[in-house]
């Protein structure tokens, strides 16, 4: 089995999936986003040197750049954690074929180094390096500097998979990465250990003595080996490719009866969330969402930007809505056929999801009340955002769900599928956040803060008043795409 076989398998898996064929528009959008970043980085790389030279005439631009590399790397780690996945390859069928296990693993890891994330920095690093050379920096040293940055990028690439696998094994979801990045940032910020100087010192010593490049190369090799042995261990049916039998934690959930005919679905949804790894992570996200405001409100920079409050409010009160809602009805994709042949009303099914989302918004709003400490306007903005979420965003996301054609395998274990959330799902989230921001921003600009909040509340109330009508319309949409969904959910992608 040669590399080209692997590649052709990958190619077919990607282009023959229902998902690819049905969402050309999204793919085009993704390409544009990628292009946008390439151009931005390119511009940055070309313009950085002259800008720094102009702004800080008495400092060496190269040194300034080096001193900020720590933040660059930290941001890189964070970005990758949320957007990059270890390339998924369905390895189970390959196990019984005459291919060495190590080859499969090498392939998966090797493929990851061709990720877009690894090439993106080059678009900034190379032009900047060229600018350095033009400005009479020593040629060899600059080349080694560029190579070093690239190697560190690869180190982050492989480090990310280790972090991802740790966080998926421990089921703590995003907490480890937030803790790690936050911790490093804090240690640096309060000058306990100055990573800024450490990183810039290390890089400039390689710049001065190119031989030191051996050190990052060794680190890279070390991380590769760790990844390799980790993955190789997982390539057995009895370890992670096969699911472990779990002891049942049962609870009767009788209180859901209050929700009437949607009760059986509510119970099902709650079990779905609690008993499966993927949806369970949306619970952990709640915690992060709740503290999201702390990034903004204490910061004096944002004190004069009250239009940000509505955005934060939408995010804080709607984080579960966005996270859980964007995969409706794919959460049920595994047994969608069964649901469709049962004696159920689509409306009840959707009502259960709606109720869950509304309850989450209310809970998040109540929990976010302490933010009033930073100003009464924040409370008002959060209230308006919550109403908007309940009245508008819930319906929008349910409507969006009727275009959902991507199956989610709830039973799938962590081995080759860490996050499962690609950039695509994040893009779908944009209209949910940008619409209210635009409305609020416009009202704020033309009138004032209170009118902005009022606009969101009015829209939300309109949505609540027309809830039944909207739900009927959404139900129609789901019925229309019933056969397509059944077909797509039946496919393994």
């Amino acid at each position, binding site marked *: 089995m040669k590399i080209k076989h692997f590649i052709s398998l990958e190619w077919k898996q990607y282009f023959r999936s229902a998902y690819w064929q049905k969402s050309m528009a999204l793919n085009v959008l993704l390409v544009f986003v990628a292009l946008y970043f390439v151009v931005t980085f390119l511009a940055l790389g070309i313009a950085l040197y002259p800008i720094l030279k102009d702004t800080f005439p008495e400092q060496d631009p190269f040194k300034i750049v080096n001193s900020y590399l720590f933040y660059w790397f930290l941001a890189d780690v964070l970005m990758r954690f949320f957007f990059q996945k270890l390339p998924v390859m369905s390895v189970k069928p390959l196990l019984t074929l005459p291919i060495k296990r190590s080859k499969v693993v090498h392939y998966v890891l090797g493929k990851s180094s061709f990720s877009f994330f690894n090439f993106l920095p080059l678009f900034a690093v190379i032009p900047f390096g060229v600018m350095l050379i033009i400005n009479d920096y020593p040629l060899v040293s600059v080349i080694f500097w560029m190579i070093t940055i690239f190697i560190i990028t690869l180190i982050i690439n492989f480090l990310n998979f280790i972090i991802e696998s740790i966080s998926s094994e421990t089921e703590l979801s995003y907490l480890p990465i937030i803790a790690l990045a936050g911790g490093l940032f804090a240690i640096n910020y309060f000058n306990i250990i100055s990573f800024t100087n450490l990183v810039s010192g290390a890089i400039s010593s390689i710049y001065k003595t190119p031989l030191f490049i051996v050190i990052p190369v060794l680190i890279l090799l070390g991380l590769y080996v760790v990844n390799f042995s980790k993955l190789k261990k997982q390539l057995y049916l009895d370890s992670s490719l096969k699911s472990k039998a779990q002891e049942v934690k049962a609870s009767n959930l009788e209180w859901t009866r209050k929700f009437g005919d949607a009760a059986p679905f509510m119970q099902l949804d709650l079990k779905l969330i609690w008993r499966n790894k993927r949806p369970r992570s949306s619970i952990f996200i709640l915690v992060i969402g709740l503290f999201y405001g702390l990034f903004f409100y204490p910061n004096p920079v944002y004190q004069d930007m009250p239009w940000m409050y509505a955005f934060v409010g939408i995010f804080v009160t709607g984080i579960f809505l966005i996270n859980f809602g964007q995969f409706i009805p794919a959460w049920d994709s595994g047994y969608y056929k069964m649901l469709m*042949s049962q004696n159920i009303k689509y409306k009840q099914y959707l009502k259960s999801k709606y109720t869950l989302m509304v309850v989450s918004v209310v809970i998040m709003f109540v929990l976010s009340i302490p933010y009033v400490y930073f100003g009464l306007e924040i409370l008002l903005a959060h209230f308006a955002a919550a109403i908007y979420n309940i009245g508008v965003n819930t319906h929008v996301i349910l409507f969006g769900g009727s275009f959902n054609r991507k199956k989610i395998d709830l039973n799938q274990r962590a081995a080759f599928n860490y996050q499962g959330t690609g950039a695509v799902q994040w893009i779908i989230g944009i209209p949910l956040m940008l619409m209210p921001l635009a409305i609020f921003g416009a009202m704020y600009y033309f009138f004032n803060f209170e009118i902005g909040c009022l606009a969101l509340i009015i829209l939300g109330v309109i949505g609540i008043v027309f809830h039944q009508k909207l739900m009927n319309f959404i139900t129609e949409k789901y019925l229309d795409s019933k056969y397509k969904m059944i077909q797509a959910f039946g496919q393994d992608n």
Partner: protein
Amino acid sequence: MINTAKLTKTYGSKTVLDIESLDIPKGQSFGLVGNNGAGKTTYFSLLLDLIKPSKGEIRSNGILVKESEDWKPFTSAFIDESFLIGYLTPEEYFYFIGELRGQNKADVDALLSQFEDFFHGEILNQKKYLRDLSKGNQKKAGIVAALIGNPEVIILDEPFANLDPTTQIRLKGIIKNLAEKQGVTVLVSSHDLMHVTDVCERIVVLEKGKIVKDLTTSEATLKELEAHFTGTETY
């Protein structure tokens, strides 16, 4: 009970099912046999409105399946494992299905108690999720779930596959009982000619989407089927 008229299903230019007419009376145990790709599962999927017919129609108890949903209350099915909800325990699954079919817990428990033999102590009270059961046990759970709520039409796709011999024999008993004593219309597909002839009063052979034989089961049926499939396999 079930009337099929001029039903075709095509994908592109390929016709996978083409049934001129097929009527299944109430209370019949009906067997569908055929090689892979003959259209058995396609027919059942059409019967459950999981796919759209290209032409023609199926009426179940007079209700046009592709347009109304009123056939759902009296129809139940187990096609494959995708009918199971993996993260529920078998009991929770049975109660969930029961609830969708208007049965309370006591009703479901009463029904389940009849199948203790069939479960062979491997389904109930195991403290395991359905996804962690073996294929055979998943199938048992799925088949019994299809019997909840006194359906008048039961559709089982390949119910004998993956089951152990004891369970296969018990399942045959269950299916016969449903059709003969309770007047339920049972539709079964299978690759096992022996089981089908044991269980079904009537057997239809599909080949490349068309009905090539429609037999009332008798002593000679098994021989005839075997001869048919031996013949078709040689060319």
